[in-house]
């Protein structure tokens, strides 16, 4: 018999229950708080699937859909921030091979838990976005690759897909437009690397999540060597709004280069950790004071990791000066990434933080490329002995050399995800490392 999975009600992160705060700008999460929003009828009653009807009924040609998304300047919300419109346009127009659209719901980046809100509360928004995206790139099949641990979210998505089939939004000849499309939920089984675009493709092919060599790029030769597009949950969820209100309307939100809104999942030493949707370009100071309720216990901010653990760290001063958009964060040498912000107060020992991160990347390195497989282990061991009282000055030079020799030398960027933080922690917080040197005498 199949064990019946039980889930508990308290899955929702805290902050989302209250009504939107003044500084928030809920576009995707506008109706998120409505109960049973994950059911198709409630979703349709709030304007759901209108975008799909607009695309298939008018009908819009796939190129028009792509141009609309290009006009919105929507950038990938998974971490790389690559313009979605361009990504879709790379898929060859010829139909000799089947095309695939894969939704990257693996969300394993430490500090990131924003996709979970959409997966559990607004599954239909993502499904609608996936159908539109598949129509745009001519994909007959799409898969929601969801991380194995999100068992409850996988069930919600699965039920939503069945509802969509029953409502005629999936299957054969959708809304009489002649466009057939099948969608399936595919559970991962616990591997951070499957969040990487080609790692996900390898995993979906029934193999170990080993990223593939690029070139060939997935748009040309991806899943089963056919043209494939991999988009993040939040990216796809934004597509229906863009189709309904037009790309231009989306550019009015946020800044010129970082248009629209972004879901930020905040954790660490703040009073109200949780998932918030804010307009791009909001200053971190406002975000911290108004939305996050300031630092927990009134402590002083020491550092902030903006985009998930693989983003280089920002000092308190830098954080206070930056605004939450791709360009500003990049100007401080970090990355917006997936928007998994971790706030650290003055009591945090950043060398221990870095050691914890190195344990994560050592454990999650898939082991395919030598620099990353051996380098992550080496960095963790160096940091381990560094913090266990055997700190030497050459360790710092060695850490710098090893992380330098990992950056840009591997098939995927997992090596860079630990190498860049190591470099940034040592450059921006040298005093933290000095303390250990003095302690070791």
């Amino acid at each position, binding site marked *: 018999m199949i064990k019946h999975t039980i889930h508990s009600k308290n899955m929702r992160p805290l902050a989302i229950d209250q009504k939107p705060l003044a500084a928030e700008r809920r576009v995707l999460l506008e109706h998120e708080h409505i109960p049973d929003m994950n059911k198709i009828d409630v979703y349709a009653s709030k304007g759901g699937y209108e975008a799909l009807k607009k695309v298939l009924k008018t009908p819009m040609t796939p190129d028009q859909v792509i141009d609309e998304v290009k006009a919105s300047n929507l950038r990938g919300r998974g971490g790389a921030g690559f313009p979605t419109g361009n990504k879709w346009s790379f898929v060859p127009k010829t139909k000799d091979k089947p095309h695939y659209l894969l939704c990257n719901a693996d969300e394993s980046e430490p500090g990131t838990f924003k996709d979970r809100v959409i997966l559990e509360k607004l599954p239909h928004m993502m499904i609608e976005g996936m159908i539109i995206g598949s129509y745009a790139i001519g994909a007959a099949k799409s898969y929601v690759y969801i991380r194995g641990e999100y068992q409850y979210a996988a069930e919600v998505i699965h039920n939503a897909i069945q509802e969509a089939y029953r409502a005629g939004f999936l299957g054969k000849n959708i809304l009489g437009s002649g466009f057939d499309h099948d969608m399936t939920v595919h559970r991962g089984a616990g591997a951070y690397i499957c969040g990487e675009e080609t790692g996900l493709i390898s995993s979906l092919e029934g193999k170990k999540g080993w990223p593939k060599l690029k070139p060939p790029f997935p748009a040309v030769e991806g899943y089963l060597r056919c043209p494939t597009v991999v988009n993040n949950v939040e990216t796809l969820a934004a597509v229906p709004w863009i189709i309904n209100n037009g790309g231009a309307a989306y550019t009015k939100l946020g800044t010129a280069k970082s248009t629209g809104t972004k879901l930020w999942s905040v954790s660490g030493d703040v009073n109200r950790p949780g998932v918030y949707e804010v307009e791009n370009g909001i200053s971190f100071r406002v975000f911290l004071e108004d939305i996050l309720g300031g630092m927990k216990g009134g402590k002083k901010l020491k550092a902030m990791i903006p985009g998930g653990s693989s983003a280089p760290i920002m000092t308190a001063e830098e954080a206070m000066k930056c605004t939450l958009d791709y360009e500003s964060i990049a100007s401080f040498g970090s990355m917006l990434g997936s928007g998994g912000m971790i706030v650290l107060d003055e009591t945090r020992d950043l060398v221990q933080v870095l050691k914890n991160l190195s344990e994560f990347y050592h454990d999650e390195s898939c082991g*395919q490329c030598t620099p990353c*497989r051996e380098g992550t282990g080496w960095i963790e061991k160096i940091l381990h002995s560094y913090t266990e009282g055997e700190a030497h000055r050459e360790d710092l030079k060695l850490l710098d050399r090893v992380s330098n*020799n990992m950056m*840009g030398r591997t098939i995927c960027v997992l090596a860079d995800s630990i190498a860049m933080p190591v470099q940034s922690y040592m450059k921006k917080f040298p005093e933290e490392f000095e303390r250990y040197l003095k302690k070791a005498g």
Partner: protein
Amino acid sequence: MAGEKKVKITLNGKEIEVPAGQNLVDAAKDNGVEIPHYCYHPGLSVAGQCRMCLVEQEGNPKLQIACNMKCSDNLKITTNSEKVTSAVQSSLEMHLINHPIDCPICDQAGECGLQNYYMKHGKYHSEMREHKVNKEKVVDLGDHVVLDKERCILCSRCVRFTQEVSKTSDLGIFQRGDRAIIGTYNDESMKGNYQVNTVDICPVGALTSKDFRFEQRVWFLDEAPSVCSGCSQGCNVSVHHKKGKHIYRLKPRFNEQVNKWWMCDKGRYTYKESNYDKRLSSAQLGGIDLPFEEAIQAWTTDLKVLLAMERSDEVGVFVSPHHTHEELKSIIEVLVSQFGITKFYAEDIDAMVKADAPIDGFLYRSDAYPNSRGFLKVFQDKKIKLHSVNDLTAALSKGSINHLVMFIPEGDRILPVTGKIARAMKPDTFVVCLTPQKGATDQFPGALSLPSLSHYEKTGTVTNHMGLEQSMMAGFKMFKESHSVQEILGLLSSRYSDARHEKGRVGT
């Protein structure tokens, strides 16, 4: 290859022309630039894992791996810039930080990729002070291969080989990250007839051959190009021997048409038939050693008596397709044209050639002789009829043959046939065995045995099942007393003609 489109690429500033689409690593090697690589192998799919073949491509800030690059027009590559050499050195360092460095007890020492590249690209002082990851050391993967998981650099060549070439898919990389290990399912024995190929392509000492385990150090071995004697496929091999005294192993040699980079396990152990324990090391008469000269003299006198009385039809010659073209030609020149012997006997080679087919769908074929086609062609050209072994046994028992010349190859395959002949033979028939193996002479107690060369000592040509003539240039002799068939027959014919003209001293 002439019709192929050529493209111009610039390698280290020098413009060269290479076939379009050729892999950059191969193209560079053809033009004298050695790009270091572990996981790339021309016969396997591209893995791009070891990151040793990083090169600088103009217009691309990041270093690119060369093994994933196909040559296309105006591709500009630099392999000797400072940035590339330091990248290669650091990739090598990463390979070595968890390596046990147990070269004293590792069979691969001397031909190990890590040693070679450390001397060419490494030469750094290791700064690895942390504890190395320990893994299982000596794991028995069946009767051909021994695995050492600690030495493995996880280049996945062996895994790709079992999945793409031998198609047994019994090797895999388990676990994750630097705890990853190579092995079979629960370390069960490997399957298939191509296991030892994984030992050849393993760049380090992780997979070592059980047969060659601790036998000899590779820098003591000399190499001689030859062709495998296992079957009619004619895989090109190189014979590894020490100063011609003992053969330690066979390794496949690349040949585009015949066996590419591979060879089967059956053929790999055919060298054992050439080694000391199996060999007839000196001429014998009825089991008693005697100098080679006297043996030839004895043979000449008996032959002379018969031929003088015009009874050349009482001489029977048994031949086998294990012999090279040159040997067969010298047999025909001496025995047929000079002595007029007509009765030749052999196994049913026609049937073998017709029934010849690959047994395991890849290299190993059913016809167990390396030169069957050549053998048939030589005898058909000279229009000499080949009688069957049954005719020979009948003739022997009838007594119409009382001078029997047996050309017996090495190996146990032939012994049942020669055994049948030996049993059918009358005790007083004069038998001459030209064979490298002791096993054959034991079957003919009263015979005059002359030690000839084993297959891997021969220099000559054999024709494989495709009709491809392949040459063997061994050029070493394991025993002072043994001579090639051509030499023996040469001595015989010169002794015979001397005896006839009663002049000229017998030259040693």
